[in-house]
Each structure stands twice: as C-alpha cells, then as structure tokens.
C-alpha cells in the first residue's frame, strides 16, 4: 500500500518534469512579454495626457526615453524548440534522475515498513490495561490474601511510580506467602524508591535480612553498595560493586550498569546533571526511543540510566548527584560542576538543597566573576533568586 503511494507520487513528480518537455509550447509570445511592459507604459502615458493629468510638453522627453527602452528590450528573441528526439532524451534523463535521487536518498533515511502510530489508535490497548488494573484491585480489596494477585500488582505499581502502593503490596506478599530473600530485596527497592532514592534505615534492614539468607543476591548487594556510598564510604561501595561484577555470571544484564556506577565513583559524574535532566523527565520509555540509537543530545551515561528499570533509575541518579556534591565539597573550583549540581537539585525538586548549593557555589567561586555571572543567570533561569 505504501509502495503504491510512493509509485504514484514519483510518477506525478516525473510527469511535472517530462510533460513540458514532451509537449513543447509555441515559440510565439516570448518576445512580446518582454516589450509588453514598455508598450503598456507608453499607452498609460498617452491616456494620462488624454485625461488632462499631464501636459503634452512635459511627457515628450519621457516618451522618448520609453521608446529607447522599448527598442533595447526587443533585441532578444526566443529560440524554437529542439528536435523531438533530443527532447525525449532530456525528458527521460530528467525523469530517471528524479526517481534515482528520490529512491536512493529515501533508502538511506526512510522506514517504509513502519506504520503510523497515532495515540488514539494505541489507547485501546491502554484502556484495557487500566481496566485490568482496576479489576485486580477490586478483587484484592475483597480477597486481600490472594498472593498471586498481589504478585501481579506489585511490579505494576513500581512501573506506574505508585511507590506507596508498591511498598504496601510487597509487605502483603511477605505476610501472605512468607519471607524469601528475593521478596525482601523487592520490598527494599520499593522502600528506596519511596524515599526518592535514599537507602533508608528501614530499607537497609530489609536488604540485610535478605543478604543473611542469600549473601550473593545481586539486587540486594547493589543497594548495599549504594547505601555505603550515601554514607560517604566510597571505598566500601566500590568493593561491594566490584565484587558484584566479579561474581556475576557472564551476560548478566546488570553488570554494565554497575560498571557505570563504579566509573562514576572515579570522579566521572560529569554527566550527572544532564543525565538527571533527561532521566527524571516523564521517562517516555527511552529504551524504545533509543532503539534507533540514542536520542540526539542524549549523553551515553543518560542512556545507560534510561536503560535501567524504572525503579533503579531514581537510585542511580541520586547516587550520581550525591557523588557530584561530595566531589564539589572537596574541591569547589569547578564552575561547570556547580551549575550541574544546582540544576540537578532543582530538577529533583529539592528546592532547599538547590538554594544551599547555589550559596556554596557562590562562596567557592567568589573570585571568578565569569563563573558567578553564570550562576546568577542559572539562578534566574531556575527561579532560585532570593
């Protein structure tokens, strides 16, 4: 169907080129249009004299001038159309050029196989999803001890960002189906998400319990490392994560992410700000968007974060921001770093921290008028001016 449309459009375009070549016009009027302008001017001049607007004595010189221009204009003549065979050849060559350029370039840039995907047409699937959720929730309200229903809903809540519901549901699962390391790790992750990426005391207890029964559980160990980092113990965080990478089975999906985090420890959280800005957006399934290569302007670190499950994104971002803050606390002579940090806090919705970071930055960069100028601009842009 698409190909038929392409063929029709290409044919129309070729026709635009070849029709005038195959059906040559009469060569008559060419010279006339050139001189017509001056003839019209002379005629108008005469009529003005007739109407009494101009006096004949005044127009004599003008009329002579127009006459001179008329003679100049009539010097050119048009040429008759060429031999039919040449014209057909030109038409064929031009038509072929049109088709070749269009087909060649479209082969490079087009996606003929991909259909349109307007939102309305896709929403039928979505509404089904919404009704399904509503049905399961109604069912769980009448039978709160249905373990299977709870296990379906918990990850859905996580995906939808309803972390309070997720925490409640994971607790219910443990109550109904009993403890297990993996269930506890899931609960721990939900708790971290609920706390905007901070590994709270509650969460840590849950992870500790999980690790007691299963000391190699990757999910729990990842957050264990994050907890160390958030405590300011970089070395321990590094040890935990490096061990996690070492002991991971080959092709484990999480090693890449953990490696990134280790790299961030080495002072590379430079991409933090941008990553936060990108990844904390509504996260419109960036994994899908990245399928054709990362979106333009999206740095590699952000893409890596975007590829994390929604739950871990926040934690990862938080870790990066904290790392940046820690580094700047040690060495404040980094204008660009401060700008990123302030922006990151603002994006994370932490107004107070943003204001504080701004003040710290102004102190640290007091001797650098250009940097403070940029801070002022940023403060204005973000509405942080006091």
């Amino acid at each position, binding site marked *: 169907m698409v190909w038929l*449309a392409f063929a029709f459009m290409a044919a129309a375009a070729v026709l635009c080129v070849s029709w005038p070549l195959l059906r040559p016009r009469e060569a008559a009027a060419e010279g006339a249009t050139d001189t017509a302008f001056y003839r019209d001017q002379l005629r108008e001049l005469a009529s003005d004299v007739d109407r009494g607007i101009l006096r004949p004595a005044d127009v004599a010189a003008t009329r002579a001038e127009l006459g001179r221009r008329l003679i100049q204009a009539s010097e050119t003549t048009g040429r008759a159309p060429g031999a039919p065979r040449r014209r057909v050849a030109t038409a064929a060559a031009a038509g072929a050029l049109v088709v070749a350029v269009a087909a060649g370039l479209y082969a490079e840039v087009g996606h003929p196989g991909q259909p349109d995907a307007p939102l309305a047409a896709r929403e039928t699937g979505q509404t089904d999803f919404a009704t399904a959720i509503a049905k399961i929730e109604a069912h769980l309200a009448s039978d709160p001890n249905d373990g299977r229903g709870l296990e379906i809903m918990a990850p859905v809540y996580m995906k939808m960002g309803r972390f309070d519901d997720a925490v409640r549901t994971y607790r219910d699962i443990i109550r109904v189906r009993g403890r297990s390391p993996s269930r506890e790790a899931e609960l721990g992750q939900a708790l971290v998400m609920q706390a905007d990426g901070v590994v709270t005391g509650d969460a840590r207890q849950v992870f500790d319990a999980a690790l007691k029964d299963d000391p190699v559980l990757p999910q729990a160990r990842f957050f264990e490392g994050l907890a160390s980092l958030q405590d300011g113990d970089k070395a321990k965080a590094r040890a935990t994560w490096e061990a996690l990478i070492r002991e991971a089975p080959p092709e484990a999906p999480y090693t890449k992410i953990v490696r990134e985090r280790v790299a961030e420890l080495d002072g590379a959280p430079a991409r933090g700000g941008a990553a936060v800005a990108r990844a904390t957006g509504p996260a419109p399934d960036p994994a899908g968007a990245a399928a054709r290569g990362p979106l333009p302007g999206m740095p590699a670190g952000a893409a890596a974060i975007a590829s994390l499950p929604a739950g871990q994104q926040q934690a990862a971002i938080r870790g990066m921001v904290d790392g940046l803050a820690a580094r700047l606390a040690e060495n404040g002579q980094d204008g660009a770093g401060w700008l990123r940090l302030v922006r990151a806090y603002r994006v994370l919705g932490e107004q107070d921290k943003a204001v504080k970071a701004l003040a710290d930055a102004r102190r640290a960069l007091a001797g650098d008028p250009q940097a403070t100028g940029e801070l002022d601009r940023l403060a204005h842009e973000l509405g942080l001016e006091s």
Partner: protein
Amino acid sequence: MFIETGHFALVLALALALVQSTLPLWGSVRRDLTLMGTAVPVAIGQFALVAYSFACLAEAHVVSDFSLVNVVENTHSTQPLVYKIASVWGNHEGSMLLWVLILALFGASVAGFGRGIPMVLRSATLAVQGWIASAFLLFILLTSDPFARVARPPIEGRDLNPILQDLGLAIHPPLLYLGYVGFSIVFSFAAAALITGRVDAGWARFVRPWALLAWTFLTLGIAMGSYWAYYTLGWGGFWFWDPVENASLMPWLAGTALLHCTSVMEKREALKVWTIFLAITTFSLSLLGTFLVRSGVLTSVHSFASDPTRGTFILLILALFIGGSFALYAWRAPMLRVGGIFAPVSREGSLVFNNLFLSACCATVLVGTLYPLALEATTGQKISVGAPFFNLTFGPLMVPLLFVMPFGPALAWKRGDLLGAVQRLMVALTVGLVIAVVLVAVTRGGPVLAPLGVGLAAYIIVGALSDVALRVRPRPMPLRTVVERAAGLPRSAWGTAIAHAGMGVTLLGLAATGWGVERIAAVHPGQPVDLGPYSVTITALVPRPGPNYSETLAQAVVMEGGRVVAEITPAKRFFATRQQTVAEAGIVTLGLGQVYVSLGDQHPDGTIDTRMFWKPLVSLIWGGALVMAFGGLLSLSDRRLRIGVAFRRPRPAAAGPRPPVPAE
C-alpha cells in the same frame, strides 16, 4: 502511512528542486523555450510535495504519533490543539521544514502568478530559487530530519518548551518566515537578472510586489515577536537588541531600502546597482539570521537543540550563496547600463540618502551583533553589546533619516526644489516644533529625549498626512472635487503616506517609554501600589489547574482615583513535564498605554514579588507597525504602471506663487 509518504514527498521535492535548478537555467541561457517550460510545473510540483510533507508532519503532531522523535520530544498528548499544531515549528526540524515550505511557496507563486514576467527572467529566477531549495532540503534530510522514527513509541511525549506554549508561537514564526524567506524570491530575481544580463525598469516592476509582500510580512512578524517577548518574558521590555532580534531587524532595514529602490528603478531606471545590491544583501542577511539562530552559535529560546554538524552545513550554504551572489554581482554589475540621471536634490536623491542611512544602520546592527560573537570565538572573552551601544550608534543614524523621510515624497522626480519642499512641510515642521517645545516646558525635570522624540514623531505623522492633503487639495476647491481627487490618488501614494505615518506612530510609542513608571516590590495581598496615574492591588492569590500545567493566579484590580478601571490576572504556571515555571504577565490597555503586572516568587510571609509597570502610549509601538504593514498592502494592491515624469520648472506666469506639485 502519512509519515512515510510525507518523508518520501520531501525526498521527491529535493529531486524536483535539483531539476528546477538546472533545466530552466540551461534553457534561459540558451533561450530554449522547451527547457524553460519545465520551470513552472516543476516549481509548483515541488511546492505541492513540500506542502504535503508539512501536512503529514502536522498530522503526526495533532494525533500525537509518538513514533516520530520530533513528536516525542516536542509535544504532550494533553496540549491544546493550537499548540499541537504550533509545536510543528516550535523545534529545529519542524521550523526548517516551515522555512522550506515558504521558500517553495514563493517559488510556486512566481510560477503561478508571474505570467507577465518574461520567460527568460522567470525561468532563471525559478532556477535560482531551486538552488536555495535544494540546499535547504538537503540540509533537512541529512542533518535535521523531522521524520526520524522511534522503534517502540513511548506512551507520552516530553511536552513543548513552556515558554513557547503561547498563541505567539502560532502566529510569530509563520509571519516572520513569510518575510524572511520571502526575500529569497527577490534574491533569485536579482541573481537571475545578473545571469541573464537584463536589468531594467521591467525587472523592477516584477520584483516590487514580491519585495513589498515580504517586507509587509516581515514588519508584522517582527512586531508580533516583539509584542510576544514583551508580554511573555515578564520584564516589560519589547526589544532587547538580542542577536536573534537583530537578525530579523537587519533584513528589515535592507528590505526597506530595497523597497524604495525598486520604485525608483521602475519609474526612472535609476539606482540599478543599488537595487541589485540590496536585493542580494537583504536575503544574505536573512541567511545570516538563519545561521545565527539555527547553528547553535547563539543560545536562546529560538535556537532549540543544536548540533555542530548543522552549524557547519548552514555555514557552507551561507558561504555558497552569499559568496556566490556577490561574486556574480562583482562580475556583472559593471555591465549595468546607467539609467535615468537626476539632480542631488530630487526624489531619487532623497532615496539615495535613504539607502545610505539605512545601509549604515544595518551595518551598525551587523557589527553590534557579530563583533561579540567573533570576539568570543577568537579570544574566548565574553562581552555583551546591548542597548547602550545601539542607542549611541543606531539612534543617531535614525534621527536624520527620520527627519528627512517626509522630504522624499515632497520632492519632484529628477530635479526637486528644496525650498518648495520646505514650504510644503511647513505645517508639519511647525506642529512638531511646537509640540516638542511645549512638552519640554511642561515636563521640566523629566526625561530629555522623550519630548524631542514626540515632536519628531508628530512632524513625521503630520508631514505624511499633509503631503496627501496637498496632493488632494493643492489650492482651495469645492469638497466634491477634493473627494474625487482623494479617490483618484493612486493607492501607492496613499500607501507611502500611511506607511510613513505608521513609522511616526511607532516612534511616538517609543518616545513615550521615557515617561513610563516601574515598581518592583514584594507586596501583601490587599496592599495597593501606586503606579503613575493608577494604583494596583493584588486582592487574592488562587491556585488553578490548566490542561498541562498548574498555575497560581493573582487577582488584581487597577484603580484610578478610587474607582476600579480594570481587573487583571497575572499568573505563574508550572509545567510538570519539564519542571519549568513560566510567568504570564497581566496586561490591560488603558487608553493607548498599558498597565503590566508580572509575578515573581512567593514568600512564606505571604508576600509575593511583583514587577509592575505603567507604560503610556506603549501600544502605539506595535500599532504603528500594523499601520506600516497596512500601507505596504495598500501599495501592493496598486498594480498601476509607474512612470516618472520630470516636470519643467513652473513658468512664472502660472497661477500665482504656489508650491510646485510633484508627480504622483
């Protein structure tokens, strides 16, 4: 299916543009009628394809088809329909497509409506237009493809930049582009004339309507952009000498000079070299503007996402077209035959003065815009060239230009009579002087320049009107004759007078800014703030949800002498998707001035930061631009042939001493 066919249409349009840039040109050089015959259908076909492609992109935005990267990155499914459509050009890729659409539109219009144009000229013009189209279509397809796809479409988009979510986005870019890009066809006409070697009065007649059309749209586009910045940025300013604004002002200045030149050339075949030069310069400045805005050299709301390859590509296009056309000009201009001769004091002479000053103004703006960029690129040093620089350079150049402006229409063609012109302008000069003197006396201690500006503005307006009045009623005559003569006065003469008066109206608005009042304060709800003749009280702050934002609305009343004269509702909108806050100024027009209130931060103690302004006569700034544009359209509607007739000096015997009457 729309998306991929739209994409294919764009590729096909490029193929047709390539044909358009070769066959007709070859035809017009060899005077081969058959080859020249391809120009018209190909130009129209190319426009149809680009238009279809644009419609497909718009359709994808309207139905929120998130399988397009462009739609994902710039819209949200909850946006109101008008912003969904406007978001098509609220981003780099889409705005470039709009650019090319308008380019193709002007090409197709010349193809469709330019029947009177000699075929050689029309074919060569369309060929040059084809070169520009090819270059920009290639740019779009290779570096800024609006039809890039997403394999697994997300459920929601990232929303349009909140600052752009305004009716202004629906109006300003299309108008501005119609002006900016409209000058492309004038450029093409100039290049074609140089290539074919024929530059005469006929040429000027064919070019003039297009230049007028582009100029009118550019005037409206700049005014709209300025008003948008005024009400949306919350600073109360309407012109910031921002490089992006300058980028649109420069083609306007050059275009204004061009406009005046074409009328001289059509009537008198004089100023050929000027006309061609200005035609090339105007569009070159449009291209320069496109480069500045689209390359990422500048960061502003206009520049969207930038990418170095795009900058390089546009720079190449810029070098090719500007360098190429000026090389062609240098090679061919000496061959231009000198047309009608004229005395220094004459209509033509005044227009040369006009050209010189407008060009100098344009050069000042160019230096002020490019110098900081060049300095930053070479030394890394950042300097800001703002209002002070332009007030000191641009201002002094504009004053003599504006002063001489009413003299132009008052002088006769070929050789004028300065004394006679002064006589004709006596009323205007007197009115301007009296107003300035009275204002200086009345507003003692106030701003110095404002009264002088108002005096100059009054002189310009009265000068434009009295010129028409003297043409209609050169001596006492019955009312019926006056009406008849007024109706008989060519529309282009009315257009000139109205456009010149519009300039005066704008100047009046600008001059009156000197008497503006500004208050910046943290106010409690209920606390009145004095603002010139008014007082403003914010009565309540209320939260209100919008379609894709939530806002804090301030209900404010404007009182005059204890009486409520208006209610305004400035607001602060928070867009969750982009985590961005945008202030919506509350504006009410009282008389010709405006009260302007913009909200800042709310404090825990219940106060809110506000900026309040009383701006007398401020609406005239944009009102004047509308008047100018109306004058342009009026002149455009006048398709009468123009012939400059030089009058012999009035014989002393003629009916008594009266000022000489210039030709229509």
